[in-house]
């Protein structure tokens, strides 16, 4: 049965508390709960499994190092996702130094990959890379992690109105890009 948000928060809080009380196994519990989601978030942001792995490791390590300063009145969930988004954006910024404008990806047209599954993966990855990193974070949170507008606003520390506006614009841009790819 799927965990409710309230139950998930309570479980996170309990694990954080246990970890801070010296129950080191609680760290494993938190990793179990979030590693897949954080890895996929980073993967969608970066389109590179090795980078995504690095980001996930870095985020967890930082999270545990900073856990004492974490304010329990906030959601662990938002905090660790925010760190992942920020770390991914940092990686992208560093990467940007070596990427020229000519490297902007084109979304592959249907039928260009060896099989349908690969084609779908390629198109998704390339579609995301077509977006600006900040907008990409919105799309990933919404469409891969199924966050609500409010949760996205919480993670990205922006207003809900801004979330909507930027998400809609990003999707519009993707829509146009996909059309161009098919043309």
């Amino acid at each position, binding site marked *: 049965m799927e965990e409710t948000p309230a139950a998930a928060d309570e479980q996170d809080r309990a694990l954080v508390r246990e970890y801070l009380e010296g129950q080191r196994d609680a760290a494993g519990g938190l990793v179990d709960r979030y590693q897949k989601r954080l890895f*996929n978030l980073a993967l969608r942001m970066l389109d590179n499994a090795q980078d995504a792995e*690095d980001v996930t490791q870095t985020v967890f390590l930082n999270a545990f190092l900073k856990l004492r300063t974490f304010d329990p009145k906030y959601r662990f969930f938002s905090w660790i996702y925010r760190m992942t988004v920020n770390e991914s954006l940092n990686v992208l*910024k560093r990467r940007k130094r070596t990427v020229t404008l000519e490297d902007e990806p084109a979304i592959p047209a249907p039928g260009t990959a060896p099989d349908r599954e690969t084609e779908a993966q390629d198109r998704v990855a390339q579609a995301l890379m077509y977006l600006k990193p900040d907008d990409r974070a919105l799309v990933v949170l919404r469409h891969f992690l199924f966050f609500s507008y409010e949760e996205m606003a919480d993670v990205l520390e922006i207003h809900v109105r801004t979330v909507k506006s930027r998400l809609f614009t990003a999707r519009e841009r993707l*829509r146009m890009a996909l059309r161009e790819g098919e043309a």
Partner: protein
Amino acid sequence: MLHRDQIELIHREIDGANTPDESAAFRLLVEKDPEARALEADLRQVTALFHRGGEREPPPHLKRAILDALGQPARASPRDESGLMAPHAIVRWSVSLLRRATARMEEAMMTKKAMLIGSAALAIVVVVAALVTGYPPGGGEAGTIGGGDSIVGVRQAARYRGRAMTQADVTLENPEIQALFQNHQILNLVKSDVFRELMQNDAYRQVMASEAYRQILSTEAYRQVMSSEAYRQAMSSDAWRQVMSSDAYREVMSSEAYRELMSSEAYRQILSSEAYRRIMSSEAYRQAMSSEVFRQAQSQDAFRQAQSSEAMRALQSNEAFRRLNSNEAFRQLLSSDAFLRLQSNEAFRSLQSNEAFLRLQSNEAFLRLQSNEAFLRLQSNEAFLRLQSNEAFLRLQSSEAFRQVASNEAFRRLQSSEAFRAISRSQQLSEAFMNEAMRAQQ
């Protein structure tokens, strides 16, 4: 043409965020408007594409690598019992995490080296200049020496200006200082045009007048650095001189990005961090940096050791280090043409592998000096930053006369002497010292 509200209504419907009333309005809209229908279809196609992408499992070793890095055993879980060896995971974690960080670390260290070179050179200039120009400029109540200072040859000083010689003379008669007054290399430097030009420079005078600089000069760490053989050798090397005279170095020193970087809090924190200190003083780092292979391939053993060291790991996870890496000025500096040229400059490369330079970097006193609060304040001092890009200052540093002074034995002894520290702490004693120096020059 769809209205903005209508477009948002469609988007919200796609996201399942509409209220029942809004959903009803949406259905009505798409029923009547073909453009709305087309938009809805397109958006559903976009979102369907994402859903087809699916989720990937993280690498099986990921959890263990994270927990190992935290220094604790992984809690048993079926997914982690895949037979992966913990040591392998640790190594893999270290290598993978640091692989990309390596380039950044290397860059950061190089930047820092450039900065340190400038600072060290300034130390020499200030000390030498102090011999002939007065220290520091500006008025103010004179300081005193004595009380808690039990310095050989230095006792309570009285106001010097306009008076006969006082107890301060005792200090000025220190044999090390006297030897310096007689030294032709010092006098040659002092008589050079660039030196004289520099003395007129406002930035230089402000640096000399700064409390931070005075404090540095009076620290024990500074004294030890100045008296170290490694310092002498590094400063007198050809490579150092060539770096100082290179255009690329000048450009870096005068760039806005460099100035911003020096002023950043993150940079200060890095310099004073224990992790940074441990890296710089590690044998593995020294070996890696002095290896030619280092510049060609990062697979060299010593380099890998340096990378996977505990200290490097701590530095990587250091918040200041991370902030530094994302600091815009830092990024700009690293990607600037001047910095890239400096890195590929043969003399700069040679300096990095210079044995004396590496020993200096791992020198305990030198490391302490870098984390000294006054030293850190000086790095972000506006006058200091201006001075570093000053043409006369740069020309002076690359001059032969300057090089000779840097390796001058009497000069070294002076800087490491207790007497000089006393002079550094006292404005009035400094003034007496200058007067004596000028007299000696005539």
